[in-house]
């Protein structure tokens, strides 16, 4: 094994921990952590609620190399507090993005989050706003900020707004992206609006396949850490400064989406409009078949 190869063992991205994902993503032995668990920078707020803390507050950040090039990496741990953004958790990512701007290094964000941590909601909400501003500053400086989404907690709430600020998104089928979660919609609007226990509905409305088909994500991969790594290598090759032209193209793209699909009742209707063969069969397709079938998808063409 050379220094530029990662661990080649098969690993489900969905099942893996934040630390396992980083290990599988970066070149073997190249990761070094910032504000590691030994510093015990835990949340100062969870004890008010008598909740257990985690030494890294649910996010691992640091620097490493991917296929030989230096990157900054952040990985959320979706099993701790649902990967939610609190004060420390958020500030670690904010700091990393500000560093990216100074160091001119690309950033990989491994999302796995339910959104803002309610026990520190104001701090979490502000962290989201600070992170988005830092991403915009980095992208204006020509830095790529790439999001990888396929974890247990998905990418919900404020996390999904951060994802929408990234230059490129890599998703697996498991990578659900949505502002309001299924339970939140059901609680607020009733089961007629959204039945959160209807898992098939959740996946086809918010899941990675649908997001890829409407241009909400740029690359679709298997639930395999090695597939995420290859896609990240690919995504890092591409560099484009974010400016008014890109923003205008995104405006056009999102207007077009409303015109084309604004009246759709269900994802299947959208897939029908896209001209996919047997749209009801899309959720069942394995990755290679799905990617062939997705030829007519709405490609974001990096207008994000």
């Amino acid at each position: 094994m050379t220094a530029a190869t990662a661990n080649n063992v098969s690993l489900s991205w969905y099942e893996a921990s934040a630390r396992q994902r980083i290990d599988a993503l970066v070149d073997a032995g190249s990761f070094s952590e910032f504000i590691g668990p030994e510093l015990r920078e835990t949340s100062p707020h969870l004890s008010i609620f008598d909740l257990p803390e985690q030494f890294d507050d649910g996010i691992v950040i640091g620097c490493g190399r991917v296929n030989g090039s230096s990157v900054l990496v952040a990985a959320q741990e979706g099993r701790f507090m649902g990967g939610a953004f609190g004060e420390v958790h958020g500030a670690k990512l904010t700091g990393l993005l500000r560093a990216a701007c100074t160091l001119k290094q690309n950033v990989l964000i491994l999302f796995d989050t339910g959104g803002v941590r309610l026990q520190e909601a104001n701090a979490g909400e502000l962290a989201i706003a600070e992170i988005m501003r830092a991403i915009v500053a980095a992208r204006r400086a020509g830095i790529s900020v790439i999001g990888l989404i396929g974890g247990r907690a998905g990418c919900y709430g404020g996390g999904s707004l951060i994802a929408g600020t990234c230059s490129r998104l890599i998703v697996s089928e498991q990578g659900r992206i949505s502002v309001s979660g299924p339970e939140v919609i059901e609680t607020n609007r009733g089961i007629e609006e959204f039945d959160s226990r209807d898992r098939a509905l959740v996946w086809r409305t918010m899941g990675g396949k649908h997001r890829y088909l409407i241009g909400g994500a740029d690359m679709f991969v298997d639930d395999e850490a090695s597939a995420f790594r290859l896609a990240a290598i690919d995504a890092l090759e591409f560099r484009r400064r974010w400016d008014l032209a890109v923003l205008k193209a995104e405006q056009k793209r999102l207007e077009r989406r409303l015109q084309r699909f604004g009246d759709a009742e269900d994802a299947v209707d959208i897939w029908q409009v896209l001209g996919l063969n047997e749209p009801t069969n899309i959720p069942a397709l394995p990755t290679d078949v799905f990617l062939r079938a997705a030829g007519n998808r709405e490609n974001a063409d990096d207008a994000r």
Partner: protein
Amino acid sequence: MEKLSFRLSSPSSASGTRPQAIVGVVASGNLEVLLERTSPPDVCTIEIATAAHGFGMVWDAVVRDFVARRSAGGLRISINDGGARPDTVALRLAQGVRKIEEPER
């Protein structure tokens, strides 16, 4: 949260040279174990913060059994526990020692 603390003598030190290792996550029925090579070579300290109150006796038995079976000298072990069962705790402790003993790349 309940805090527990143990200081146990451990005649043989953990092997390897890694300064620290971490395993597990804090979730319901799960725990994280942080191991650092910062205790005296014949001592293993274990600090626990647990969400499940009133299980001091169980922790006492699990950590004593662990130190009796493993070479844990020199380790400072810190645990954040989300209410894991004793077998899960024993498993994570064993994984943690294995990890800190792994050769460095």
